[in-house]
C-alpha cells in the first residue's frame, strides 16, 4: 500500500510538495518506506492535524493515512468534520476490518459474524452493531468532492487503487475539496488466513459489504 502511493507521488512528481500525516496504527511505520515530510498524529486525529497543516500551507499536498480504528472509531468526529468543512486534504483510509497494530481486536468495520480477539463469538449486530460504511456515510455530506472505495488484493485492483490515489491528489491540487480513498486491505496475520485466502476473502466477502467503486464525485 505504501509502495502504491509512493509510486503515484513519483509519477505525478509530487514528492517535494507532499506532507504526510501517518497515524497510530500499522501505518505509522510509513516513514520507514517513503522519503517525504511527515508528522505523526495522535491516534484518530489525522484529519485535524492535516487540516492545520493545509490551512497554513495551501500550496502543499497534504494527506493522511489512517486505519479503520483510527478513522472510524476514535477519530470519527475529526474525519466527519474535516470532510464536512470541505478541507482541501486527502485521506487514505485503510480498511482491514480489524485493529491490526494492537493485535486483531474488533474494528468499526469488522463484518457481521467476524471473529476477532474482542468479538470471539463473532460480531453480533444486536451487541456490537453493524460495520460502518465510511464512504457512504461521508457521501451524505455536502462538501466532500471525491469518495472512492478500492482494494489492493490483486494486480488489477492495485492498478485501480493507483488511479484513485492519483485522482484524489488531482482533486486536492485543483482545490476542488475533500477527497478520501478507502482501501480494502488484507491483514492475514489477524484474519488468521494465508495471503492467498486473504486476497480471496476481500473479493468473496468483504467487498460484498463494502462495494468497490466511486461513491461520490463532483466534477473536478
Amino acid at each position, binding site marked *: 500500500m505504501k509502495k502504491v502511493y509512493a509510486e503515484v507521488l513519483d509519477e505525478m512528481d509530487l514528492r517535494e510538495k507532499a506532507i504526510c500525516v501517518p497515524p497510530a496504527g500499522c501505518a505509522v511505520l510509513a516513514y520507514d518506506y517513503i*522519503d517525504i515530510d511527515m*508528522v*505523526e498524529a495522535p491516534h484518530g486525529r489525522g484529519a485535524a492535524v492535516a*487540516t492545520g*497543516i493545509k*490551512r497554513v500551507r495551501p500550496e502543499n499536498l497534504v494527506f493522511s493515512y489512517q486505519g479503520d480504528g483510527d478513522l472510524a472509531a476514535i477519530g470519527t468526529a*475529526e474525519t466527519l468534520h474535516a470532510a464536512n468543512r470541505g478541507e482541501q486534504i486527502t485521506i487514505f483510509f485503510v480498511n482491514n476490518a480489524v485493529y491490526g497494530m494492537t493485535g486483531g481486536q474488533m474494528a468499526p468495520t469488522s463484518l457481521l459474524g467476524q471473529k476477532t480477539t474482542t468479538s470471539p463469538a463473532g460480531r453480533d449486530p444486536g451487541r456490537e452493531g453493524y460495520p460502518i460504511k465510511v464512504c457512504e456515510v461521508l457521501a451524505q455530506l455536502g462538501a466532500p468532492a471525491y469518495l472512492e472505495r478500492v482494494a489492493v488484493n490483486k494486480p488489477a485492483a492495485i492498478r485501480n487503487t493507483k488511479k484513485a490515489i492519483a485522482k484524489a491528489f488531482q482533486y486536492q491540487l485543483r482545490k476542488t475539496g475533500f477527497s478520501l480513498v478507502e482501501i480494502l486491505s488484507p491483514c492475514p496475520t489477524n484474519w488468521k488466513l494465508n495471503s492467498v485466502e486473504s486476497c480471496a476473502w476481500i473479493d468473496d466477502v468483504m467487498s460484498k459489504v463494502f462495494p468497490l467503486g466511486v461513491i461520490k464525485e463532483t466534477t473536478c
Partner: protein
Amino acid sequence: MKRLMSGNNAIGEAAVLAGCTCYFGYPITPQNELPEYMAKRLAAVPDGVFIQAESELAAINMVLGASVAGARAMTSSSSPGISLKQEGISFLAAQELPAVIVNMMRGGPGLGNISPAQSDYFQATRGGGHGDYKIIVLAPASVQELADTTALAFDLADMFRTPVMILGDGMLGQMMEPVTFPAKKKERHLAHADYVLTGAKGRPARLVKSLILDPKEAEDHNWKLYRKYQRIEQQEVRYETFMLDDAAMAVLAYGTAARIARGAIKRLREEGLKIGLIRPLTLWPFPNKIIQDTAKHLHDFFVFEMSTGQMVEDVKLALEGKARVHFYGRPGGVVPTPVELSRIISRHYYQSQKRKK
C-alpha cells in the same frame, strides 16, 4: 494609546500583534470572548486561519498541524476542555512543537461551574498529559499582564520549542481594564526552523514524531527534553514581590488570588502588620529561590489559592521544612474579598507572633 478591553479580548489582540495567524477552539464559558474576537480579527489578517473546531481534541491537533507547518498557533479553553487537550499537549511537548494554550480556569471537578477558580494548577504545572514532560505555565493577574504575557508566551514557545500555557480564570478573562499594546506588529524570529514541514524540496525529508520503539533511544529523547526543562528552570523564572523587605510573614498567591491578597495586605499594612507578597508569574518553572531566600529572614509563609491547596505543595517543596506554611483555600468558584482574606491572614499573623514570644 490605552484601550478598555476584557482580558479575553486583550489576549486575542496581543496574540495577533505577536504574529499569531492561527486560532483553533471550541466554545466554553468563561473564555468565549477570545474565539469570538479571533474569528473577527483573524479574518483581517493575511493568511489568518480561524476554525471553530468540532471538539477540543480536534482544536489542539489543528494547532499541532499549524505549528509543524510553521505558523504561530494558539488555542484556548476552560478546565474541562483543557482536560481534553492533554493528549495533544503531550504530543506537542514530545515532538518539540511551539504552541500557546490558554486556560481560563473555572470551578471543578467535573462540569463544575463557570465561576473563577484555580484548581487546574496541578494539571498545568505537572505537564498535564502522559509522559515525562513539563510545559511553561504563565500566571498573569491583570488585563495588561494578559496581553504582555501572550506575547511572551509565543516567544518562549519558539525559543524552547515547547507548548506554553497561560493560566487565567474566568475573572481575569471577563473583567475590563485599560490596556496598551505594542505599536507595531512583531516579526517572528524562529532561530531553529529546521523542523518545519514545507515539502522535501532541495533537502532531505523531515520527520516529526514521538513514536520511539527502542527504549534506549526513547530514554535519550526523555533526557534531552529534561535538559531543556532544566535550562528553562535556570533562565525563565519570573515573579513579583510587594512589601516584602521588612515583612514578618510572606503571602504567596498568583493570578486573581494575588490581586485579592494584595488588597488584603494593603489593609493589614495600614493596621501595622508586617506582611509582604510573593507573586509567581511563572508557575512552572516555580520561583523556588526567592522563597528560599525569603525564608532566611522570616519563618511564616501564607499561601492563598482558589483551590483546596495545590501551589501550597510547591511552596513546601521549596522550603524543605525550613519555615511554617499556612494555607487558606476557597475551591469551587468562590472568590473571597480582600476584607475576608485580611481577617484570615491577620489571625494567622498574630498566632505566629505569639508563638515567637
